[in-house]
């Protein structure tokens, strides 16, 4: 972090700053909710959950909602309105953890892309500013450092914040972030060397707290020839196929498209229905079931293999990136304690 210019702002002031931005942005902040943390739209008087470890549900849903309307149609066969509406308020994702910010940079590769662009995601993404909050207290099952991440990783963020206790240290990462801080300059003061030194110390400590280290530097190459390896027969055995790992995952992006009908749309003005896309999961048997009855991934084995291969082999092939940021959500939330790290280790050791 050489020559980065840091600014300082009091935590209390941040609430006022955000309050002043509500006209310009839909602001999302981490809040406490029944003992868990989650992202919620910032409202006047809202407090921020500064000490949260990470949110239970990943903030990917801000940019890629669990369900969203692609368009409405009817009463005849015409498409009524085309979302996404461009313009409108910007999005400010405030206080996202660095692993989740990195996940956004991965989703950008999927929904952007050279051949087809996804207008729903990109329209939102274009007007989004990502302000991440470096991790002071990684969790026991965080393993971002195994995936080239770290508590103050900057990928995907426009501005990165550091919690120094009373104060927040802010550094711009992108041009967008620079402009953001410039525009809000009145809230900030210049940071001193001691502030930066304090931040470095906290980050060093935080980095040391990440004990979970797995060696997956060459996982892509290792999986290249492992499609028929014997470990696939083993590692799925406990899996219930509930799909929770994919729903919590900040990089999982598979979706379904379905039509919903409005049964009360009797008059000629009301749309008859809408086409909706919603998250889907490769862990479900219907995901790949053909109308003919044929299913190329008929058992848990093929589906678990797809999940691992997609993240650690296919995406590296197609996007030059491993689609895992080491947030640990799949590990924490699996009802039968399947641990992705253990699977990766067993893949390595079986060979």
């Amino acid at each position, binding site marked *: 972090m050489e020559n980065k210019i840091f600014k300082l702002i009091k935590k209390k002031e941040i609430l006022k700053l955000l309050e002043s931005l509500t006209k310009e942005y839909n602001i999302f902040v981490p809040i406490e909710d029944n003992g868990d943390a989650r992202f919620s739209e910032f409202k006047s008087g809202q407090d921020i959950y500064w000490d949260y470890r990470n949110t239970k549900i990943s903030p990917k849903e801000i940019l890629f909602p669990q369900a969203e309307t*692609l*368009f409405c*149609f*009817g009463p*005849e*066969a*015409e*498409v009524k309105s*085309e979302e996404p509406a461009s313009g409108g308020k910007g999005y400010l994702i405030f206080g996202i953890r660095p692993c989740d910010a990195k996940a956004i940079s991965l989703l950008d590769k*999927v*929904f952007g*892309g050279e*051949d*087809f*662009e*996804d*207008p*729903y995601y*990109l*329209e939102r993404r274009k007007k989004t500013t990502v302000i991440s909050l470096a991790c002071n207290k990684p969790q026991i099952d965080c393993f971002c450092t195994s995936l080239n991440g770290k508590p103050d990783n900057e990928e995907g963020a426009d501005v990165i914040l550091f919690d120094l206790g009373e104060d927040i240290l802010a550094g711009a990462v992108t041009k967008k972030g620079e402009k953001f801080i410039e525009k809000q300059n009145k809230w900030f003061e210049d940071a001193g060397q001691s502030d930066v030194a304090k931040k470095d110390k906290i980050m060093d400590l935080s980095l040391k707290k990440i004990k979970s280290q797995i060696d997956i530097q060459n996982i892509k190459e290792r999986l290249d020839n492992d*499609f*028929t390896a014997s470990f696939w027969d083993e590692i799925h055995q406990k899996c219930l196929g509930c799909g929770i790992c994919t729903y919590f995952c900040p990089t999982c*992006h*598979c*979706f*379904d*498209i*379905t*039509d919903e*009908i409005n049964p009360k749309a009797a008059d000629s003005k009301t749309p*008859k*229905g809408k*086409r909706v*896309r919603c998250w*889907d999961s*490769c862990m479900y048997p219907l*995901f*790949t*079931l*053909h*109308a*003919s*009855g*044929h299913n*190329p*991934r008929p058992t848990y084995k*093929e589906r678990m293999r*797809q999940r691992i*291969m*997609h993240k650690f*082999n*296919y995406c590296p*092939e*197609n996007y030059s990136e491993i689609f895992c940021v080491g947030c640990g959500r799949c590990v924490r939330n699996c009802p039968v304690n399947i641990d992705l790290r253990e699977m990766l280790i067993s893949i390595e050791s079986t060979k």
Partner: protein
Amino acid sequence: MSNPYVPMPVTIEKIVIENKVRDIKTFDLRFNDKKDADRFKFNCGQFAEISILGVGESPIGIASSPMDEDFVQFTVKKYPTGTVTSVLHNLCTGDVIGVRGPYGNGFPMKEFEGKNLLIIGGGFALTTLRSLTKYILHKKNRQCFKDITLLYGARGPGELIYRSELDEWDKRDDINIILTVDDRCGLDWKGCVGMVPNVLKEQAPGSKDCIALVCGPFIMVKYTIPPLLDLGFIPEKIFTSLEMRMKCGIGKCGRCNIGSKYVCKDGPVFTYKELQGMPNEY
């Protein structure tokens, strides 16, 4: 930014029931907006998402030739569990549905120019091969290709689709048509009897300077490839087209992949050489 998820409205102009069991129909669709028709420029072997608002979408190979300018055709088999295909089969001429696409790579037609072609189809999978055959037989294109052989098989004579067209082609002297059925089904039948791979072995067409194109039920494709190799076709010269469950058609929704390849945008057309390098998960 144009929205790839919004279908273009089309009107059903004509419906032809293709087989005796009456579960395969060909739909002639005309774009309601001329601009959409201009936008929908496709290659042989590409597919599109047929959209029925309120029901859903289904990826279907384009059956008409790129040379047909007035309409686009899709031949659709109805499956009892196929929501969209079942509803589509109950529609009438004049009904409006949607189409979005074209998607996928299609056959590399330029690469085939100056070559002999052996076209092998099974059942209703003849659709995109029919698009290709029609394209080649067009008077503007025929001289670009050398000898053309079409080997087409189905379970019984009543299950051969595009019958009248096949009869027309059979009268031509610039295409060799070989028809086969697994079973005569008691019907009057002058063609071959036997499964496609066996008939291929019997007929033993030459592989010199020849491209083989195989589309059919996967089991047929699987058993047709060894005799092709025996005849001297190399894996790079054997093309097939794959099917997968799809939603978006544009490589985002994440379900139609075989290994790192998405059938919707890297396929559906692959050479046998490419298939050999892909995991066996289709």
